[in-house]
């Protein structure tokens, strides 16, 4: 099949970049593919790029030399770090994260981040260099079939072999990455196309592709049906996910929840869409979520799922999930409707549009008895789990008490970036979040090593906010080379390592399900404070409770980056827990 023209209609020419302005005066301006790419990024409003140079992307880096004032390029230490930083940036800023990498190993190092961004719907545009077009398929130096490797983990990808394609392809890339259900896009540009000069006629952002429907049409009859079900419900329950945040529908969602008076629980990526202490926020769903939201999922009569995709970590055993309930599913992605849980009413559309329509039709409700059910479960959970986790009497510290002390300092205003494992579950369960876009974590893919680079990106995406990375001793060692990026780019992030000297989550499973056969979870660590010091980053390691509050205070007040290592109980388990293969109502408190 031949390559073909990109289809865009109803276009408008934007002239923000200097050269774009000139191009209006003299349309025949000659640019290289690399220059055209950078012009496109400027017009798309890109301010920060995370990247790493190499042979096949050198012409783009050469052009970047002259764009240094407009485009802030952050040199990372590994391409995986670059893409996770791009993800962190996208998640706090709501903009598209941009990542540069070279061909071959540079591009393959992006794959984990692409998979992570794909499953967590993070908008990214990744630019990879590629060998000269005439060398494609010859096993040339640093040649990899990047398009085919990344096809399953990108929303869209495309190989550019001719510079004239660049403006249209980049326009399409940004449009696809950020519209509808967002996702990562990868553009592979051969070296000849980067060098090639062509007649640049300005840049036109894309707003329509005929084969692509980012937003389904809202059907008023479903809104009507959904409202009827909600109005008849005696025990309605709202569960929400990241869709509310991705759709910038936090306000619309809050209005809906408050008018309805219905208890609402969140998936890990939905955290913070309404504040943690909101009276209708009843907590977290899923495997290590709160007791009430899990058990009562199997008791509610109408389940209203908003911008979430019924991941197996949320539903537990599917054939015993909410079988008694009528399910209303609001989602922008038609492929999510009925994928895992059959819906009674599918409300297909952008929740920023559908939620206000629904809010208008629903009646204000008082559900005192139903709320009391949640309160009773909360009381039981506090008694069995939370109280001891946050106020331990043992000599050793728990992860929970660290988060509790941190809450007092941040007042819930900080961006909390977590890695993957026990510390992630504890942080997500107990961190106070007052604002949206405050919880940055690898939810769907569970990528250890995510937090440090994502925190770097998160800080660039939200410069005025405090960014705190909470990381386990295992995950930190996966990407600790990014301390080099923190050092060189003077990234003001606070790093807390919760060190239990184990790969804690796997150890917990081995304890509970493999008769304590601790197979390769006993991990040794270097002197993290000394490692940080080697990068010129201040730090401290504490193991006494008495030091916790002052150390956290010192960390928050220190100028620039800081690493605080907290030694915590070795063999603590995260509870409650829905064991794999069990129903959400079979959640265990111990």
């Amino acid at each position, binding site marked *: 099949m031949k390559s073909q023209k990109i289809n865009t209609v109803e276009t408008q020419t934007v002239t923000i970049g200097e050269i774009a302005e000139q191009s209006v005066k003299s349309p025949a301006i000659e640019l290289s593919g690399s220059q055209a790419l950078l012009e496109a990024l400027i017009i798309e409003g890109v301010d920060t790029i995370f990247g790493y140079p190499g042979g096949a992307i050198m012409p783009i880096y050469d052009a970047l030399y002259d764009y240094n004032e407009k485009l802030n390029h952050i040199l990372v230490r590994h391409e995986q770090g670059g893409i996770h930083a791009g993800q962190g940036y996208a998640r706090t800023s709501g903009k598209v994260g941009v990542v540069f990498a070279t061909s071959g190993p540079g591009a393959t190092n992006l794959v984990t981040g692409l998979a992570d961004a794909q499953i967590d719907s993070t908008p990214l545009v990744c630019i990879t260099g590629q060998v000269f077009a005439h060398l494609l398929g010859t096993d040339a130096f640093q040649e990899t079939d990047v398009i085919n490797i990344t096809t399953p983990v990108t929303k869209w990808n495309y190989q550019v072999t001719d510079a004239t394609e660049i403006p249209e392809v980049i326009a399409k890339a940004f449009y696809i990455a950020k519209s509808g259900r967002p996702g990562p896009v990868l553009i592979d540009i051969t070296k000849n196309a980067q060098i090639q000069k062509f007649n640049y006629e300005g840049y036109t952002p894309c707003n329509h592709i*005929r084969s692509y429907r980012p937003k389904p049409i809202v059907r008023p009859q479903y809104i009507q049906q959904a409202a009827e079900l909600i109005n008849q419900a005696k025990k309605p329950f709202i569960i929400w996910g990241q869709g509310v945040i991705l759709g910038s529908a936090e306000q619309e969602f809050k209005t809906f929840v408050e008018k309805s008076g219905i208890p609402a629980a969140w998936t890990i990526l939905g955290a913070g869409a309404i504040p943690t202490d909101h009276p209708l926020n009843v907590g977290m769903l899923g495997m290590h979520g709160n007791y009430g939201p899990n058990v009562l999922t199997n008791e509610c009569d109408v389940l209203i799922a908003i911008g979430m995709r019924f991941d197996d970590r949320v539903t537990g055993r599917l054939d015993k999930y909410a079988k008694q309930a009528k399910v209303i599913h609001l989602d922008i992605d038609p492929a999510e409707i009925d994928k895992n849980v059959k819906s009674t009413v*599918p409300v297909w559309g952008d929740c920023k549009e559908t939620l206000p329509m629904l809010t208008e039709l629903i009646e204000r409700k008082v559900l005192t008895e139903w709320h009391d059910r949640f309160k009773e479960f909360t009381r039981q959970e506090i008694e069995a789990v939370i109280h001891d986790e946050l106020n331990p009497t043992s000599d050793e510290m728990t992860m929970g008490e660290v988060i509790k002390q941190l809450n007092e300092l941040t007042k819930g205003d900080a961006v909390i970036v977590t890695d993957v494992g026990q510390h992630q579950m504890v942080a997500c369960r107990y961190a106070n979040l007052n604002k949206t876009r405050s919880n940055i974590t690898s939810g769907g893919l569970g990528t250890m090593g995510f937090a440090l680079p994502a925190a770097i990106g998160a800080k660039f995406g939200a410069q005025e906010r405090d960014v705190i990375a909470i990381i386990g001793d295992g995950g930190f060692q996966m990407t600790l080379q990014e301390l080099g990026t923190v050092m060189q780019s003077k990234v003001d992030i606070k790093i807390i390592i919760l060190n239990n000297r184990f790969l804690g989550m796997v150890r917990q499973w081995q304890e509970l399900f493999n008769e304590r056969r601790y197979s390769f979870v006993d991990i040794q660590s270097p002197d993290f404070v000394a490692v940080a010091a080697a990068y010129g980053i201040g730090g401290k390691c504490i193991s006494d409770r008495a030091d916790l509050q002052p150390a956290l205070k010192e960390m928050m007040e220190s100028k620039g980056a800081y690493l605080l290592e907290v030694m915590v109980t070795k063999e603590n388990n995260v509870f409650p827990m829905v064991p794999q293969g069990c129903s959400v109502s079979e959640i265990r408190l111990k």
Partner: protein
Amino acid sequence: MEKQEFNITVYTENQIGLLNRIAIIFTRRKINIDSLNTSPSEIESIHRFNIVITESEDVVRKLCRQIEKQVEVLKVYYHTNADVIWQELALYKVSTDVIAEKVSVERLLRENGARAVVIRKDYTVFETTGHREETDNLISILQPFGLIEFVRSARVAIIKDSEGFNSKLREFERLEPGEDVIENEYLNQGQKVFSM
């Protein structure tokens, strides 16, 4: 739900790499593609895939939504064999000497609707179209007469109640397309509210 043959029709842009993007939707779920045909449609620049798989309707519906989600896919339909008219084309190469000698062969070919495409001194190529059983049947008939080579095409299928894609494409090209283009494929039209 019981497994049966489904014919999946996909209208796409003509884009390099799209075949792989569609194929991996099946392979990721370890679903075998029984037959795959891709060729230009009646509309310039639009390609049409015909994919045959044996699965339950529930699985097929989910697969179709995943395919339709791809940026360069315009529309996906799925149909049972009862909903389509379908054909496969088969070519058979046999020795011309054998045909010439045995009168019965000619009769058998005629009975099976085969026609000669090429007749050479050394071999003759016959062609037939039909359902799988029909083309298979001719193989077993020709086998005793020294069938030299056989090849069968992928399935092509016409949707019985389709009104074609021309008018739909014009809708796709509009910024705000009409509802009939973006119909809710999953909606059970017979019921106002979904049943569990």
